């Protein structure tokens, strides 16, 4: 009887854990091959010079994602030359969100002058491996022996409303720490976002 209880307890714990799967800090991130808005397919392994990546699950249609568009572009401008390019991945089901179709993504990228790859997770197979649940949702990866290690998960900064009123730039701080050979001290943050549409 006691064994049975233990069995169910274990089952409960394991199902609870699997409900929150996805990467944690220190995990090795999967590579992918996803279509960019220019029709080319992009993988992390294409960036042989990169020291790591600012991987951002984002989209056209979420107001929080829109509020951060200029800041995402600024991150790429600042950190791509330093070895940490932005890679944006649009994770939504485009049947539910036609405004996030590849065509719409391309249009938005041109309007906003995005200089980073804006990829579509068409099969919706990559975002669940990362454990992304919303847009925008940032993962900072650090390259180490050809593996990409998760160093930060969360928000871009602490004020979606106004870039000028930001007090803590979570992503910038983390990238700066990595560039300086330091450990990221704030590895996880939370922010409201739009649930990824499946």
């Amino acid at each position: 009887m006691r064994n049975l209880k233990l069995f169910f307890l274990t089952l409960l714990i394991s199902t609870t854990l699997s409900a929150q799967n996805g990467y944690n800090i220190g995990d090795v991130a999967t590579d992918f091959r996803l279509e960019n808005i220019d029709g080319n397919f992009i993988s992390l392994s294409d960036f042989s010079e990169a020291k790591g990546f600012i991987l951002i699950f984002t989209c056209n249609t979420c107001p929080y994602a829109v509020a951060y568009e200029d800041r995402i572009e600024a991150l790429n401008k600042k950190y791509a030359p330093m070895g940490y390019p932005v890679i944006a991945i649009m994770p939504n089901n485009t049947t539910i969100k036609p405004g996030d179709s590849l065509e719409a993504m391309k249009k938005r990228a041109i309007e906003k002058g995005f200089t980073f790859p804006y990829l579509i997770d068409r099969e919706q197979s990559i975002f669940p491996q990362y454990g992304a649940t919303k847009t925008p949702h940032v993962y900072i990866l650090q390259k180490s022996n050809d593996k990409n290690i998760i160093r930060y998960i969360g928000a871009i900064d602490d004020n979606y409303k106004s870039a000028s009123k930001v007090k803590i730039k979570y992503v910038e701080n983390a990238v700066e720490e990595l560039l300086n050979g330091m450990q990221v001290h704030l590895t996880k943050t939370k922010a409201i976002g739009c649930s990824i549409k499946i």
Partner: protein
Amino acid sequence: MKSFIYFILTLHILSCSPNQNKLEVYDFQGVKKFLHQKDNKTYVVNFWATWCAPCIKELPYFEQIQEKYKKDVEVILISLDFPSQYETKLIPFLEKKQLKSKVIVLDDVDMNSWIPKIDSNWDGAIPVTLIYNSKNRQFYPQSFTYDELTIEVEKFLN
């Protein structure tokens, strides 16, 4: 002449965004009291926004719950709409829907500080719902059907 100026002034004040007064807007400190009420009621607290399609889809179920259990349950709908869209989206939405449930608005940019205080398992995606009473408390990071919501609410009533 003086009274005429007063008249114009009063008219002006009355016409200045009268809608704004209809919203109860709080920062997290202000919202806290709605998350910890200690009486005999069961509180069903839903975080939503007009821009969140799955939230809008389940909103009628919360309205039905409020109507069905109006003696024992209080539904509180906490909007996370952007302040810049109060006038253009939120207020027109509320006027159109004439919701019976209580609606309040949470405006607090420091999300990393307050999200974990609502529930440590909440990663920030909406919709989410919190059901609590003086005895129990449960957080639901999910969407609901009407039946699912009824089952959960009834657990608190029995």
